[in-house]
């Protein structure tokens, strides 16, 4: 996903001279082909993220479309005020390509794990937040970023995530994709949780439970219409995210639903990471498994919530 997104910057640069790549201190060879073909538009600016955000705002003020790239936590935690003021207050079309969203950097520990990035980016007026599910979707997504007004935070997985999106799904910023029609359950996913939801849905089907999937690649602006349509008629709505419970996809969905109080809403189950830093290493997969986000754990949680909702009024559940 990451290489694909990077290569798309090069492709977009070939097509549109407004496009710049700005890296802090990325891995050796990042976008080398672009650096050779467009040396003036391939900028490596050092480990100075606060400055890079301001500089990219200045370039955007002059009509450029900068694609700024480094590790997710450094684009979010380290320079939050610059992102808020220089990008969002000025409403500049700068694209923040965040490497290693969620637990990709599991072996490197909590300093590198972006587990609250969706929440803090989503809180900013004018910011758009996108979490593609696989490399193919990342490529379609990047095509749509060229002329989007305002800043975009792009949360990338790493590489090797199974390709589950299809060309016919297309990609429109702010438009959710219905991957499977809702049954008594609908799962709402973002980023690579889609792959896990698909596997969980198969496990549930084997138990006779029909589970739909709505892929919410854009967490902000949230596609509330698609959400309400998918939720209608289901008994249980489940959000899945590689993020702390506060402020992420589950929060966004709950907010959208609460704004429609009075509708016939299903019960809601939020499956996420716990509200703490991850003090374990291992792999992205092992940490997700540890926190109940493997396909089998997801299926089990859903079965339990369905059983509970038989015996109680609709309510909010959380991990």
């Amino acid at each position: 996903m990451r290489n694909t997104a990077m290569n798309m910057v090069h492709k977009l640069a070939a097509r549109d001279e407004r496009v710049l790549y700005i890296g802090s201190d990325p891995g050796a060879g990042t976008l080398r082909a672009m650096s050779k073909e467009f040396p003036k538009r391939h900028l490596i600016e050092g480990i100075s993220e606060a400055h890079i955000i301001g500089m990219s705002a200045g370039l955007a003020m002059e009509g450029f479309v900068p694609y700024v790239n480094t590790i997710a936590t450094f684009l979010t935690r380290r320079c939050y005020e610059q992102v808020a003021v220089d990008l969002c207050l000025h409403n500049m079309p700068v694209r923040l390509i965040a490497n290693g969203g969620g637990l990709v950097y599991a072996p490197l520990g909590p300093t590198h794990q972006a587990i609250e990035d969706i929440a803090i980016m989503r809180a900013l007026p004018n910011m758009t937040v996108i979490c593609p599910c696989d490399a193919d979707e990342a490529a379609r997504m990047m095509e749509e970023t060229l002329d989007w007004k305002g800043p975009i935070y792009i949360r990338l997985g790493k590489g090797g995530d199974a390709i589950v999106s299809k060309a016919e799904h297309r990609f429109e910023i702010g438009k959710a994709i219905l991957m499977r029609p809702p049954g008594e359950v609908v799962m709402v996913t973002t980023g690579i949780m889609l792959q896990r939801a698909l596997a969980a849905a198969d496990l549930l089907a084997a138990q006779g439970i029909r589970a739909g999937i709505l892929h919410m690649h854009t967490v902000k602006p949230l596609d509330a219409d698609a959400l309400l349509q998918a939720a209608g008629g289901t008994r249980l709505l489940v959000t899945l995210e590689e993020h702390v419970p506060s402020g992420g996809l589950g929060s966004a969905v709950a907010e959208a639903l609460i704004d429609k109080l009075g509708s016939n809403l299903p019960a809601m189950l939020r499956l996420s990471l716990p509200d703490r830093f991850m003090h374990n290493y291992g792999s992205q997969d092992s940490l997700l498994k540890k926190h109940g986000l493997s396909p089998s754990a997801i299926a089990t949680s859903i079965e339990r919530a369905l059983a509970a909702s038989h015996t109680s009024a609709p309510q909010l559940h959380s991990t």
Partner: protein
Amino acid sequence: MIQISPHAEAALTCTLDERSLYLRRLVLGSVRSAGRGHVGPALSLIEMVRVLYDDVLRIDPKNPRDPNRDRAILSKGHGCLALYALLADRGFFPLSELDGFCGPDSILGGHPEYGMVPGVEASTGALGHGLSIGVGLALAARLRERSYRTFVLLGDGEINEGSVWEAAMGAAKHGLDNLVALIDYNKLQSYGPTDYVLPLEPLADKWRSFGFAVQELNGHDVGALRTTLKQVPAVAGKPTAIICHTVKGKGLPPAESNADWHHKNKLSDSELDAIRVAVGDF
């Protein structure tokens, strides 16, 4: 002990001409109308802003977004009263707007806002942002082969921020000789002397070591400012830093070098009388 620069001593005794007094009347009139404002940081800036807007910037108030205009960013956004006085006086918006400063229907807030105020190039006030934005503007000129220059006005307290020095390294890396940093070195920040809060000396050496061509002058000396600013870049291939030795609250004796006048919430009758004595009716 830090050495007192001869420029700093000269700033203390520098006599102000009628235009400088007039601009101070505009600033203090806004403070009187609003009942608030950063007085000290604006009065130290007046001559720097005045020379920029009167004599240096290639700008057209009737076409404030002219792509070929010079860009100026007031990174120390709390000094905005000086900027507003100059912009209004130069015709970017009516002088009457100054009376609405910080009011509910005003375009003029306590920090300048991009898109709200004609002539304001960036929203500033959160300190340590302006030089990076300026680097972006200057780099864009380079990439587009345009001849506009970018001037960034920084406060001395502001350059406590690490982001300023990141930007300085970036400007030097790119050899941005179309970028000028003007440092309002009044040696007093909100809590007290810069030498006490976070010492900056040797300030000229710092900028020089970060790759800038450095000039130092008396920041209230209109002639020196004019001469220096008309000769940028000081060195081809390098960004320029101009350290302007100033006096916080300059021109208003009770406010001079007095941290109590950093921000004023209201003016007493005796303070209003002192202002009249200093700058005339306002």
